Structures are given as C-alpha cells and as structure tokens.
C-alpha cells in the first residue's frame, strides 16, 4: 500500500465517519421525537406504561389515548416525514436546485388535487385515492417538464409555483362544489395534517413504502453521478434512464405520502437542506429521510400543544418554518447552481 493510497483512504474515512455520526444522531432524534409525540402531551404516559400497553395491558385512559391517538399519529408522522424527506432530497439533488422540492414545484399539490377529486367527485376511498394522488403527482411532473423544458433552473421553479397555486385553487373549488366544506378536511388537503391517522392507513402506507424504499436504495447510487450534472454523469457511464427512474420513485413517495396526510407544507423542502447542512453540505438520502421523519413528528407535537385548546395541523407548523427558509434561500442566492 503506497503512502498516497493511505492518504486517500484516510480522507475517505473522514467523510464516512461524519456521515455515520450524522445518521446515528438523526436516528436518535427521530426516536426521541417519536417517543415525545406518543408519551407527552395532555395525558402523560410513562415509558413503563407504554411498554405495558404495547404488551396488551389495559390502563384506563392511557391505553385508549396511546393506541387510538398518539401512537398512530406518531407512526404516520414518521412514515410520511421519511417519504417527504426522501422525495424532496431526490428532487433537489437530481434537479440540482434546493427550490425544486415537490412542495414548491406543485407536485404535492397535484397529488392532493387528484386525491380530493377521487374522494369528492368519484366517491373513492383507500388505495384508490393513493393511486389518484400518484397519478396527479406524475401529471404535474409531466406538465412542468413539458412547459419548462430540460432546464432545471428558475424556469422550472416558476412554472412549478404557478401550477401549485392553480392546483390549490382546484382543491378549494372541488370542496365548494361538493358542499362538504369543513375547515378540518380542507386543511388536510391544503396544508397537510396527521389527523386522519389510523392503523388501516398506516398499514397501507407502510406496505407501499416497504416496496419503494429498497428500490430507492438500489437506484440511489446513480445520484452520486447525477448531482455532477448531465454531461459528467453521462461521461461516467450513468444512463439518464436511471435518473428518470429515481425521480419517478420520488414522485411515488410523495404521492402516497400526500394520499395519507395531505401535502404537508415544505416538509421535503426543509428536510433535504437541513440534512445536508448537518452532513457538511453533502447529500445523504438516509439523513434526509430521518430529518423528514423527526421534523414532521416534532412539528405535529408542537402544533398540538403550542396554542392551548387549538390543534394546529402539522402542515401549518412546517409551513411556518418553511416560508422564512424559502425567503432566506432566495435572499442569499443559494438557489440554482446549474449554469446551463
């Protein structure tokens, strides 16, 4: 082993160690927020009681609250957050633009509009709604691609922001037509909420993610080349089809997550850059997924207990965090670094 090869090994080990540290820290944070969401709140449950409840013990009050309210909500928060975090990071990395997250460019809203259409107009429920959400997300992607061309810069973001606004109007219109305009339902489909959490929904989402996540892991290696730009990626033997496949998987992730909890505002938009900042600027999909999970679960807890007697949906909290971050990105010019 030459001295130079040892230098290479040492330098690589340095970045690997940092990534592992970040992932371990975020995993701990996710478990922490999950436990906080389940155990703390109006009704505090001890860890010992929680274990006994999971084992089947009936504790008056506590069992009902945990199994029917806080545990499903926290579980859904973790699943949805991970899906948004992953989907967002894939979008931002492949399009090489932190603004190009599914929430900002209208993909989430497209999924939401299609889901509302399926529920309100067609009277569907369950997996069929997820199917519609995915189709809606894909349709928005196709339209943006068609209008914005191959450029991943401002044009794509502007077209996306426009379609997001239009689709949010579509959601509101569908509600007025259906005469079931109640504020809670509308909030789910406009900003996202974990209120619909129940074990059937979690089972469906969990099963879908169990299929999608291994596929993402398998494709994610090409991301290391894709993020170098299309020319270098091709020069290094990455086929553009791999990238399209990965983006397609990200759309599916966002679609099924929206079908479960609505378009949780800015969840994917925030998770990617936060994970990246922790990892010294480098992309790590695992870190982004964990950040998303912790963010959504934590935001749901804050939303539930920040204002007394008011249960803010998770999307309101993530939206309140995301908007200033969006402004900061724009103000500091940390957007599109693609020169083409």
């Amino acid at each position: 082993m030459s001295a130079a090869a040892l230098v290479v090994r040492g330098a690589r080990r340095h970045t690997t160690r940092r990534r592992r540290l970040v992932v371990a820290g975020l995993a701990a944070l996710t478990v922490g927020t999950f436990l906080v969401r389940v155990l703390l709140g109006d009704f505090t449950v001890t860890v010992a009681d929680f274990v006994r409840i999971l084992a089947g013990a009936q504790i008056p009050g506590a069992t009902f609250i945990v199994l029917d309210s806080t545990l499903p909500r926290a579980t859904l928060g973790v699943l949805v957050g991970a899906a948004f975090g992953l989907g967002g990071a894939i979008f931002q990395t492949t399009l090489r633009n932190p603004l190009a997250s599914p929430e900002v460019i209208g993909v989430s809203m497209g999924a939401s509009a299609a889901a509302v259409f399926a529920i309100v107009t067609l009277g569907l429920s369950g997996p069929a709604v997820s199917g519609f959400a995915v189709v809606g997300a894909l349709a928005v992607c196709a339209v943006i691609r068609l209008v914005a061309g191959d450029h991943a810069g401002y044009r794509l973001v502007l077209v996306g922001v426009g379609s997001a606004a239009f689709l949010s109007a579509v959601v509101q219109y569908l509600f007025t037509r259906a005469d079931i305009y109640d504020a809670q339902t509308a909030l789910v489909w406009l900003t996202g909420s974990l209120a619909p959490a129940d074990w059937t929904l979690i089972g469906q989402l969990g099963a879908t993610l169990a299929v999608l996540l291994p596929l993402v892991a398998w494709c994610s290696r090409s991301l290391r080349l894709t993020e170098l730009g299309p020319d270098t990626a091709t020069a290094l033997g990455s086929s553009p089809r791999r990238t399209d496949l990965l983006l397609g998987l990200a759309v599916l992730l966002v679609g099924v997550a929206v079908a479960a909890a609505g378009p949780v505002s800015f969840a994917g938009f925030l998770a990617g850059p936060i994970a990246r900042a922790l990892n010294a600027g480098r992309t790590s999909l695992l870190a982004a997924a964990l950040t998303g999970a912790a963010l959504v679960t934590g935001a749901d807890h804050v939303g539930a207990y920040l204002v007394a007697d008011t249960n803010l949906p998770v999307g309101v909290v993530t939206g309140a965090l995301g908007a200033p971050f969006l402004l900061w990105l724009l103000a500091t010019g940390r957007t599109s670094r693609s020169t083409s």
Partner: protein
Amino acid sequence: MTVVTSHEPTVADATDSADPSAATGSRLRAEDVTLSYRDRVVVDHVSTAIPDGKITVVVGANACGKSTLLRGMARLLTPSSGQVVLDGASIHAMPTREVARRLGLLPQNPVCPEGVTVVDLVGRGRTPHHGRFQRWSADDELAVARALEATHTLDLADRVVDELSGGQRQRVWIAMALAQETDLLLLDEPTTYLDVAHQVDVLDLLAELNATRGTTVVMVLHELNLAARYADHVVALLDGTVVASGPPAEVITEESVLRVFGMRCRVVPDPVAHTPMVVPVGRHRPQVHTPRSTPGGGTR
C-alpha cells in the same frame, strides 16, 4: 477489448494533408457526423480521425461547432446523420458504461455539488469500473491515488472542492477524469477561466500524461498559440465543417487564420518551442518609437 488498427479508408477532410492517423491508427473517429440543436445544424457532415497516442486540439472561432463536435464524439449528443466510431463500433450503440471505461470526458463547466471533498469527487471517476453490487475496492484507492499524484493534488485530498482556487479545481476535475483510467481523454476548453500561468500548468500536465501513459488527448482550445505549442494534430473548424487538419505547422498559417478566424496575422516561429506563433495584425498599435518602422504602424 478490440483494437482497430486499420488505417483510414476515407478521411474526407477538406484539406488532404498528410494525416498522422493513417500511420498510427484511430480508435476514435467521426464519420460524416451531423449534429444539430433542434433544427439548427451546428456540425455539418464532419469526418475526422483522432490519432492514437497523440494530442489533438480542435480550434475555431466562437460558435463554429468545436465544443459540439467534441460533445458528439463523447456521445453526449446523438448525430442526426453519420456516426462516431469507437474501437470499430458505433459509440451510440454501445452501453454508456462500456464507453466510460474507454473514453473519459471533462465538460466545459463541470458542476461540483456543495461540500464534496477532493477524494470523493475523484473517487466518483471510478464508477464505470464498479459492477452492480461491487463497491469501493483497494484498486480504486490506488487509482485515485495515482490520479491525485499525477495532477499534484494529493495534498488537497481532504479539502472541499468548492473552496479551491480555479487552477486547483481544474486539476482536481482532470484527476477525476484520470481516475477513470481510460486511454482516451476528451476535454472541452480545460483552460477556461484560468490565468496564463495556470493554463500552461494544465496543458503541461496533459502533455505529461500523453508522454508517460500514452493517453490520447482531444481538447478544444481557444488560445491558438497554446494549441500550436501542445498539439500533435490540429483540427480547424469553420461554420461546422473541418477546413484543415494536420500538424500545427501545416494547419496554423497566416492564410488559415484569416479564413477560420477572419483575422489578419503574422505567423512567426515561437521563440521557445519553434512551433507556429500567431501575432495579430489588428488595427491599433501603441505609438512607440522603435528602431525599425513597421508598415502601417502608428495609425489609429
């Protein structure tokens, strides 16, 4: 790996000067290639052969199609007619990974993601050699080490690419292409944005690689005098067609510069390397009292 050493049957260059490729063989050739963006033809029925083991420089005025030709030869663009041949097969019909093991490319403005360190970036050059399930190996470590040593960037190994100077960054990108360990290396204006000292530095590095490893280098250059200095073979493009190709001494003449760049010039021997040196005539000259007056000097 098949190596085609048969000489060129038809090199349909506009000038039929002695082509070195006829003697050495050409693993990479453009055969009647037309490249267009939408309906605008940028490279028009170009045939040219890249001599193996030599440094080929593509020159021409802005928007003459030289970068487009290079991108076509690196399979980044698909020709609307004709084909690019690598080792006897059409490059666009080969699996892109297979091409990546034989031909390396450095694009004009490569983008490095934030936070990526030098070893990480250079290590990505090893990707074409990885199997579907095979990951990083000791061979990769050695290849990256060799690439860093060749480009004198070993001491930058754990630095973040974003934070390097322009000259350092360019050397790191070349290291990434070198880690690919291909016999053919294509570079699109590797000296852009570099000051003259760093331009020479990068070109010296490429000349060293060519001399020590026998790497075939093809690059687009703007600076004619550096092209003349470093090239074994020059391809001159005008409006998407090859107007001259051959050794610098044959291609870089006062007539060809006038034709290709529309600029009057004198060509004198480079005092250092004795390669052709282009001295523009221009319209303006400073009014300096010189012992010998030059014709037309001193007019504004």
